[in-house]
């Protein structure tokens, strides 16, 4: 018989509608605008409504999520910004779309390069968000950001000022990566110190 399929199809939609309301009643206030509710809608048991209502609710971004890269600076005791980047240029070399431009600082007197970038540009409208720069930076100076709400009315190229973010921000968005890297850095520093001491002796 023709038309049976359509009735069946409508049945699915109806079932879903009812399921939504059953869950609404069962869960009460916890269903919407809570982390628990969102997590449920993202789990294998999700049924009924599946929508996460951006912007009131946001899907939690996982730690590995990558969007636009940013540069990390640390703050020393005097409140001065210390950039981690040494302008070694590895990120500019691995970048697949070649959207990173770095200018090295030169010592005005000697003309020798100083390990701080004078300028650092990323054309975010060429960037593939691939994360290779963050993966291969030997100084953990460039990392991938979680902030995706970047829409603007103008096409922009990010410069150093716009790219720099504090290390505490990084620790907050990628706690596990941060911890792992800090451990590795501490170890490397210890080895270096030990070597220095040996040399002095």
């Amino acid at each position, binding site marked *: 018989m023709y038309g049976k399929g359509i009735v069946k199809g409508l049945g699915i939609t109806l079932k879903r509608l009812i399921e939504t309301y059953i869950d609404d009643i069962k869960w009460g206030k916890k269903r919407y605008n809570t982390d628990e509710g969102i997590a449920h809608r993202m789990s294998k048991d999700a049924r009924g409504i*599946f*929508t*996460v*209502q*951006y*912007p009131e609710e*946001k*899907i939690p971004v996982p730690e590995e999520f990558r*969007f*636009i890269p940013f540069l990390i600076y640390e703050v020393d005791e005097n409140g001065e910004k210390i950039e981690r980047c040494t302008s070694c240029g590895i990120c500019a070399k691995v970048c*697949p*779309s*070649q959207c990173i431009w770095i200018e090295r600082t030169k010592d005005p007197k000697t003309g020798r390069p100083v390990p701080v970038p004078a300028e650092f540009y990323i*054309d*975010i*409208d*060429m*960037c*593939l*968000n691939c994360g290779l720069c963050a993966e291969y930076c030997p100084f953990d100076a460039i990392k991938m950001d979680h902030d*995706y*709400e*970047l*829409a*603007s*009315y*103008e*096409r*922009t190229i990010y410069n150093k000022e716009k790219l720099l973010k504090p290390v505490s921000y990084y620790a907050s968005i990628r706690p596990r990566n941060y911890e792992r890297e800090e451990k590795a850095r501490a170890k490397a520093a210890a080895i270096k110190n030990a070597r220095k001491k040996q040399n002095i002796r």
Partner: protein
Amino acid sequence: MPENINSEGYDIPPEMQQTVAITTLDKIYNWGRKYSAWPMMFGLACCAIEMICTAASRFDLSRFGMEIMRPSPRQADVMLVSGTVTKKMVPQIVRLYNQMPEPKYVVAMGACASGGGPFKGGYNVVSGVDKFLPVDVYIPGCPPTPQALLHGLMKLQEMIDKQSIKNVRWYKREPIEEIPIPILGPDLIDPRDLPQIRSNLHAEKNLGIKEN
């Protein structure tokens, strides 16, 4: 009422804002437009997949009054340029834009549509749709996640909200000029560039003669 209230750039004092007819009208006008901006259903590349996901259950574009994606440009208000604009495709895109009725908006979704993206260096890629069309909102990302797209569309709504009946281009007396459709020549030709192309090629030729 002072004479210059109808001129552009006149700041209405805050205490008067609610009473001035035109602002109230603007509000209603923009409120209506803002929540019924129908996008044109047309996907170009990878970003289109994220656009489809945005329209699907989890992100649900219809919550913003945009669920009806119209395949016909005549019924659409927003052109979501979702993906790489290639030289072969750009004549069609410009044609579609010309066919859209005013008011119309262009959203460049993703790196490709905004600035050429990862494929910018390619010989068949246009470095950003803004080389041909006026873009209202740029959404970076490759691809922008559905939430980033939604954020961009909210930005567009904000922008619509700020417009005023008085100075929008579609109520101006003079007709709105169409964008000339690019030609597929030995390479892409923008008719607006023709004079420059002629003179450049001419100069090049002369240079060649001199060198010889």
